[in-house]
Every structure is written in C-alpha cells, then in structure tokens.
C-alpha cells in the first residue's frame, strides 16, 4: 500500500536544475520528513507534489491515481492539503471564519447562497472539530492577523485539516518560531500523526522536531536524493553527516 509514489521527478527552471530524479514512497499513516541544506530543492519538490507547478520529467501517483499534471483543485478534492513556509491565511477574518471557509469548501457548499439546517449543523461540527484539534477553540472570534506567529500557524493547519486530507503537506511548520511555539506546533503534529493517523510529509529545519517525529527521513542536497531511512539510519549515515557538518579533512 502506498499513499504517495513520486517517481524520478525533475524540475528545471531554464538551465537551473532545482530537483533532479528524486523518488519517494510514502505509506499510509506515515510521517515523512524532508531535510536538506538551503537550496536543496525541498520546497520545489513539495510544489510539484501539491500541484503548484508540474515537474519537467517524472511522475507522481497519489493513492493509485497519476496526478502529475492535475490542477490544484482536483488534488484537493482527492484529499491533499498543504501549508506554506510563510503562513498563508485570511488575515482580516476571524479564526472561526478562516476555518469555516475551509469546511464549506470541503463540503462542496462554497457556491451556495443559502444553508439549510442540516448543512449548517455539518459546517458547525466541522469548524468545532478543527478548532478543538488545534487548540484554537477559545480564539475563534479573534482576527487571525492579530494572533501570535504560532497561533497563526495553528490556524493555517486547522484550515488545512477542514479538508480531512488523506495527505497533509507541511512546509517548515516551525519556521521562525521560538522554543515554546515550536514545541506546541510539534506537539500538534504528533497528535495528528499518532492519535488521528494522518499521513504527513513535512519539510523541517529543526532537527529535534525531525528526529522526534518522523518515521522516515528523506535527505536532499543540491536537488538530488542523498539518503533515505529511519531517523537512526540517517543519524549514522556518513554522507548525511558530511553534507551537514562539512567534509572531515
């Protein structure tokens, strides 16, 4: 069983090869971390999976369906959701409204001009679930733009969760956060993975987060796959140590 099967994708921007022949298999319920130095092509790799742009070569199969050139909306409808390195939210709306827009979109109500009682109840329940899961229930009425960085990130994840995704893609979920906020977001990801068995692929720079959370780790350098394995295997891999610590002269 495979949730995500990336087969030798390459992305070229002009003469620059940002990602070269990278493959990755993610099993259902797995938490996969993608690491690598800056400029390793991690976000480019992510953007191909989520449909931001198609690969130059290679194929991507999601849950048995080839999605290589499928538009974003269709991928979302298949159960793929993502967050961004720089938090993408609806800043001038409240947390509740942010989540509500996701729920209504996921339930296929986004073009409705009227909600019946049953739909309204389903929407309320969806909002409540996402807020409770991310610990934002007490902040539902606050404008997202006025929240702390960590809470904004949680709101973005909450909005992504409203889609009930079968694959959740998180691009540097703890980027730019302090100790305390990093811990809170890492805990949230752990809960999603352990308690709700979400399949998650994340890019992360914080090695404590990566080695504590991930089932498997994919290491990219200069657009190429350097290593893949369990946290223990990656920690002992000499090539990875070299890439991160520099050559031992």
């Amino acid at each position: 069983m495979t949730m995500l099967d990336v087969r030798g994708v390459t992305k070229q921007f002009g003469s620059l090869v940002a990602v070269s022949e990278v493959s990755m298999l993610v099993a259902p319920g797995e938490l996969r971390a993608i690491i690598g130095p800056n400029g390793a092509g991690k976000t480019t790799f992510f953007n191909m999976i989520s449909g931001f742009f198609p690969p130059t070569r290679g194929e991507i199969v999601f849950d048995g369906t080839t999605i290589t050139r499928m538009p974003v909306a269709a991928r979302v409808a298949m159960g793929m959701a993502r967050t961004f390195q720089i938090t993408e939210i609806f800043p001038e709306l409240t947390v509740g409204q942010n989540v509500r827009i996701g729920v209504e979109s996921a339930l296929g109500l986004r073009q409705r001009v009227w909600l019946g009682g049953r739909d309204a109840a389903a929407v309320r329940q969806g909002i409540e679930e996402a807020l409770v899961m991310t610990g934002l229930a007490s902040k539902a009425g606050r404008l997202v733009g006025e929240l702390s960085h960590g809470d904004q990130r949680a709101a973005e994840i909450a909005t992504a969760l409203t889609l009930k995704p079968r694959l959740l893609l998180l691009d540097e979920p703890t980027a730019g956060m302090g100790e305390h906020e990093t811990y809170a977001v890492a805990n949230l990801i752990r809960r999603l993975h352990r308690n709700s068995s979400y399949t998650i692929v994340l890019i992360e720079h914080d090695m404590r987060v990566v080695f504590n959370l991930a089932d498997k780790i994919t290491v990219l350098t200069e657009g190429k796959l350097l290593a893949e394995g369990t946290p223990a295997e990656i920690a002992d891999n000499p090539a990875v140590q070299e890439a991160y610590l520099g050559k031992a002269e």
Partner: protein
Amino acid sequence: MSATTAVPAPALSLRPWLTAAIVWGLLLTVPFWLPLVGGYTALAARVLVMGLAAMSFNLLLGFTGQMSFGHAAYFGLGAYGAGLSLKYLAASTPLAMLMGVLLGGLAGTLFGLLIVRRRGVYFAMVTVAFGQIAFYIAYSWNSLTGGYDGLRGFVRAPINLGFTTVDIANNDIAFYYFLLVVFGIAVGLLGLLLASPFGRTLLAIRENERRARFLGIPIERHIWLSFSISCAFTALAGSLYALLNNFADPMGLHYSLSGEIVIMAVMGGMRAFWGPLVGAALFVVVQDYISSMTVNWMSFVGLIFVLVVLFFPRGLLGMLQGRGSQ
C-alpha cells in the same frame, strides 16, 4: 464556537446593525428632512442610483479583491437597455429595468469569461478597454442610440400594481420611494449573498488567493461569478438612472464615470457594506453644491478624496465602524 471573544471596539464604533438602522432611517424620511437642509428629492434619487452602482461595483472590489475601471460600461448598457425598451418595445417600467439588467449583465458575463485569468493591473486595464469599446459603439451608432446627443424620446411609465397605479412619471416623491424599494431589494440581495457561503468564498479570494486555491476553491470561476453579478446589479443602477433622467447618453459608459464609481466606493469605505453608499452621497452632494459655483468641481472632489485616503485609509464609514466589523 460560542466563544466570540471579539476584539475590544473603540468607544465610538458603529456596529453594523446600527449603521443599517441609521441608513434606512435617513433614506425612508428623505422627503421630510432633505428640503430643510436645502436639498431636493431628485438629488436623493441620484444618491440612491449612484449608491447602488457603487455598492454593486464593491462586490467586486471590496469583497472579491478585484479592481475594475470599466464598470460604467455596464451602468451605461443598463441605461440604454432601459431607454431602448421604453422607446421601442413597450411603455413598461419593469420591462425596461429587466432589459437594462439583461443587456448589462449579459455583456458583463460574456466579457468576464475572457478576462478572469488576468489579475491586478492587467485585469483593471482590460476592463477599461472594454468600457471604451462600449462607449464608442454607443457614441457612433447614431441611428439607434442617438450618438453624442444621447437617447431621448422615452419617459418612465407609471407602475400598475393591479389595485392601484403609482404615478412615478410625474410625482417626484412617488418616484423616490419606487427607487428606494428597488434599491432595498437589490442591496438586500447583495447582503444575503455576502453573508452566504458564496460570499465567504469571495472573501477568501480577496484575502489570500493562494490559500483559497489550496482549499480547492476554483478561483477563476468565482471571480467570474462575482464580476457577472456585480455587472448585473450595476446595470440595474444604470437602468434606474435612465428612468430618473428619461435620458441615456454615452457619458454614462465613459471611463470617467467608472473612475467616479471607484472613488465613491473607496471614499466611503470598500470594506464596509454601506461604505460605497456613503461615498456616493458625499460625491453627489459635493458635485451638486460646488458645480453651482464653479465648473472645476471635480478638483474639490479630488481634494476630498486625497484627504480621505490619506487620513482614513479604510474610508469614511470604515473609520467609523472600526476594524473587523464587516
């Protein structure tokens, strides 16, 4: 979900329901108080018509986040649709309004299909281009539209309600209340639309297109829908304008009017539901008052606009209502 820990509002903040109550209170009593402050009912009628145009335009600008500098095209098409219907089809006011909405709304719907893939400045520029095409057609098609002189030779017809007839043709106050009923229905529909899931989808596009796209929202389709609806309501305002003046002219399609509609919406507050109406009221009154003294009235409007944008970037009503009260 009942935890609505709202942001503390400033002491002078106008709640949206209070704004609505004040607006309706003032509009319903216009014939009683306007003469006392030196106005006349036809002036209030102009405020209603331009206010409806600006509020309709604002569905696109304020609530979908897309700029159009060509909305006069749909306003003008609405006016010509109504005028031509009264002149050549039948002496029926409702039919005239319907024809105006159909002409402007369909033009907007078809044109919208072509432009929804453009964004920002490019979107705005093609709306100007289409507006000017519509302007030159009206300007040159002498035999149908009357060309530069405009379309004359029609008058609004009394409304037959079955049990009684409302003489909107000769009674200014009856006509004002007729406009107010149409205005009320139109802004009521706009309000319902904005409070619905569809309205929130538009807000999502305004707030963050990338996030909206990755929630599975088809952006182009919704901008197109918003554009079409906005054009249809603007055309309704245009058809009322033709009824108000018993006249339709090419300047009703000109981009300078498009600019005035933008100014009304921004000056009044494009994030506030009633903002564009406030902007339209200020614009129409200043125009009426100052144009009786100088032909350069537009420079005064421009000065007021600059001051408002500098000191109240959220517009007059936006400032009164405070943040987050949409």
